[in-house]
């Protein structure tokens, strides 16, 4: 996998996010350059099964769910739309694998790795922090590990994913051009947790 040497959307805000983080309370940081491939196809068609086979796991058909397929992650984005995610630099290989398994059936496979970057939000306050700007119910009862959703955060369209694990970890996928705005909002919203009077 080719390493990407460019500048990620939030690289100029890495310091801000680090300073806004509060250990064991709320930690913010960018995961740059993740491979992201948009996949469109008919979920009822044979190509869906072929793609599932190629990925090593069936496409998630239930709205708001994701599946782990080997070292790839597949997010449900819409009734005929998925986002395939992986380590940086894997787009070409993923695109050709998916395109191959379409076998000429109508579908779309588009490398959108640069379209969004990933902001990781972790820690016991992550849920509350996100709810300062996100209208979604993020309680584990309704948004448990592996759940994903496209929604609004701080007036910005994002895709949210709750990662598996013992402590709350969310991935916020945000459009590259909006990423700085979101980082600015996040630092502002996180300030409360760094302030002495609320840590007690």
């Amino acid at each position, binding site marked *: 996998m080719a390493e*990407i040497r*460019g*500048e*990620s*959307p939030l690289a*100029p805000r890495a310091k801000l996010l680090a300073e806004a983080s509060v250990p064991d309370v709320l930690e913010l940081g960018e995961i*740059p*350059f993740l491979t992201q491939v*948009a996949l*469109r196809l008919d979920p009822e068609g044979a190509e869906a099964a072929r793609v599932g086979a190629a990925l090593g796991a069936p496409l998630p058909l239930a709205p708001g769910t994701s599946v782990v397929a080997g070292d790839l992650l597949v997010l449900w984005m819409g009734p005929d739309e998925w986002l395939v995610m992986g380590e940086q630099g894997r787009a070409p290989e993923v695109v050709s694998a998916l395109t191959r398994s379409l076998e000429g059936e*109508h*579908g*779309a496979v*588009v*490398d*959108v*790795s*640069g*379209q*969004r970057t990933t902001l990781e939000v972790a820690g016991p306050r992550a849920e*509350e922090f996100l*709810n*300062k*700007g*996100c*209208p*979604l*119910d993020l*309680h584990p*009862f*309704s948004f448990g590990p592996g759940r994903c959703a496209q929604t609004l955060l*701080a*007036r*910005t369209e994002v895709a949210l994913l709750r990662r598996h694990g013992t402590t709350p970890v969310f991935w916020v996928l945000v*459009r*590259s*051009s*909006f990423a*700085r*705005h*979101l980082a*600015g*909002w996040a630092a*502002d*919203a996180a*300030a*409360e947790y760094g*302030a002495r*009077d*609320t840590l007690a």
Partner: protein
Amino acid sequence: MNNGYRLRARGRIDRDRPLHFTFDGREYQGYEGDTLASALLANGVHQVATSIKHGRPRGIMAAGAEEPNALVQIDEPFPEPMQTATTVRLTDRLAASGLPGRGRLAAEKDPARYDTMHAHCDVLVVGAGPAGLAAALTAARSGARVIVAETDTEFGGALLGTGEQLDGAPAHAWARQAVAELDEHPEVRKLTGTTVFGHYEDNYLVAVEHRGEDAFTRQRVWRIRAREVVHATGAHERPLIFAGNDRPGILLAGAARTYLHRYGVVPGERAVVFTTNDSAYAAAVDLHDAGVEIATVVDARGSVPPHWESLCAERGITLMPGTAVVTSSGPGRVSQVRVAQWWQEEERPGAEHTRIDCDTLLVSGGWNPAVHLHSQARGALRFSEDLGAFVPDQNPRSVRSAGAAAGVLTTSACLSSGSEAGRKAARACGLETETAELPRAASPPVRPGRTVWLVPSPTDSTGDTQYVDLARDATVADIRRALGAGMESVEHIKRYTTLGTAHDQGKTSGTLASGVITELLGRSTGEIGTTTFRAPYTPVAFAALAGRERGDLYDPVRVTSVHDWHVDQGAPFENVGQWKRPWYYPHGGEDMEAAVLRECRAVREGVGLQDVSTLGKIDVQGPDAAEFLDLVYTNKMSTLKVGRIRYGLMCTADGMVFDDGTVARTGEHRYLVTTTSGGAAGVLQWLEDWLQTEWSHLRVHLTSVTDHWATIALAGPRSREVLSRVAPDMELEQEDFPFMAWRDGTVAGHGARVFRISFSGELAYEISVPWWYGREVWEALVAAGAPLGITPYGTETMHVLRAEKGLPIVGQDTDGTVTPYDLGMGWAVSKKKEDFLGKRSFSRADTARTDRKQLVGLLPADPDLVLAEGAQLVEEAELPEPPVPMLGHVTSSYRSAVLERGFALAMVDAGRDRIGDTVHATYGGRLVAATITDHVFYDKEGARRDG
């Protein structure tokens, strides 16, 4: 006298934490846990303000948000207008002053922070009094996710202020246990100091949490979506209307009880109690036991309930059944009341009256359930004759009222109705639970009250001093005038008298007003009804609702991957939609015009580059992609060859230009469509609409790739030279890479897609690379072009260059009323296609006119002059009297480096038939001559595009 009315060892204040404050410039002392009102009363201060219209002295009447009188201005710590003393938490060094009904805003900026929180729950309980606590406990025990919101600083409501007993122990002790149990439940969220002020569609409720002046966040607005709601909002005691019912020293009986038990404060030394129902007797007894002399209890009912009769007898409190207070008197504060005989069946009290001296008059006219939120949720109300008040009728879906809010009077009944509501709410969420184990309250039997809307007075027959709404100084006399003027609807009467329009929105006066009106009209209160209850329940600060959406957080700022470079170069930015785009790049002391002339010259003579990453980009894929694009563009895209690019226009169905851009065919079944920077989101939405809802049979997928690509325009006769230096492997010669073609290649070491298109008329390329290489490739081009004097240019230069070529900007040269033909772009409208969006509209009578406004060029007679964009055009050289017929207006106007003069684009009636004509343009106060020309000013034959 400092805290002279404060009892020893009573109330829930913290006596170890004295607080110093000033009111109207005088220093006082109170305690942690006081409100401004309780602290003032403790210091014997009753008069807080003067009234708004009549300038009469006014005191503290209530103990909560319903206070109609005690309006104050906070001066310290920060100026805040129009607070009620009864809801202001006392803080050290607080400074406040009384207001005659109108407040002052601070001149300086509010330093406080306000924010917002979204929350979801199964059951939201509004109010944490007996009913609310019982509801919350029951719901919590079912495992439901519960939010309890209470305006007060602690949970308990009436249990804290009445001194009642539960299971033989003080009621507040049980409240403490209940709170302790709620704390045990992980899914329960307790919000104190939080007022739910709005109940909207689908159980969306908004609340404001007062976190304290020193808190990191002063106020937080909660946006709560609840599956089920229990309104346990309590009730407001109703004052009584009689002559002079507005004097300081006249308090609601329940409020006096609250001041006693909650704050250890007594309102005076000698009190008269005037009531129409049982509840005031408790106040009489409690205050007597606290050492206040109760001169008498005046009960409008014919007989006194035995239970209270005996309690009063034990204490030697004299009772006066079948009487009413007809008037009060006093220098400012009440010093005497007159009591007259008034049996229920008699229309007005007798002329005979007894004078009774007192410094305090406690009144109770019954209780109004706080139905505001129930009503906001579209819950129906009915008038209950036995309560003499409006009570919830049918509950709205998933909403219940409990306790006093539902018209329940005794503590034990409130507890059980709350618990029942909690159980039903939990069950509605699919959670079973038995009703909570409830304590027993020694609630005496309640006898029906007498509904008294006003006490007719022999001395004041017009009702000039019979106040209905003290906050607005609206009297019975005012209502009489309104009725006399022909007003019948309560809404008209309210507007005529301004009843219920003050800070308290008529919490104490609303029902009274309806009652008085019905009495004067001789109708039934039910049919008159109330005025509409609207959010907010209590006033909310603008800043709290604004939250964090201030400054740059007001609306997202979108930036490109090259943004910081533009900033480093000191470029001013233009807001284009949410984008920040560099406007121009001034050198040294250059002003905008100088900078733009230099940038334009560079592109025409050498080479320049612009960051055009903001252009919208949509990947269009599928076997029917060509057919689809043929339907949404005016021109034919199906005939486009793979590897080639075509300019395209989009129209709305009514034939007006709505966006434009280039369409590149990137495969047999694949296109890359670009849109205007501002139009990207709208165009994608528009295309999805037609695809999903109209032409769903077409096999096409749309994917936005706007942010995936960073795109750089490289323009000018020497652009090929610059590109060749950073893309040595690419064949850039004309025959290999012609105009309106695209190629993939390696630029500055990165995979890139290069378009050969031009918005300036010069030889030009648009180079796209993934976002994260944008800055690197940009800097590589700058470095490679340095020897050739490569010049970065901004949106202004881009506008000038395209205008010299007569290329319109959608949204600047068009305004939603312009067709492709109006723009002289008939060439972009396919004649062959059977149909496309907009085509049918072109043949409509007005749209088909040949004398419509058309895009033309305009050259001012004075070449040094630059017309104003937005200038109107007229025939005459001298302005006649208005109205002056207008021929059109200037849409774009600049100074051109290459033309060495000012020039403009304009939309002019039948403009293309008038080329050569001289017209006159408004310019400041005068008119200037200009000649209509073709809209292409430079390189008409397009000789320069190949370099």
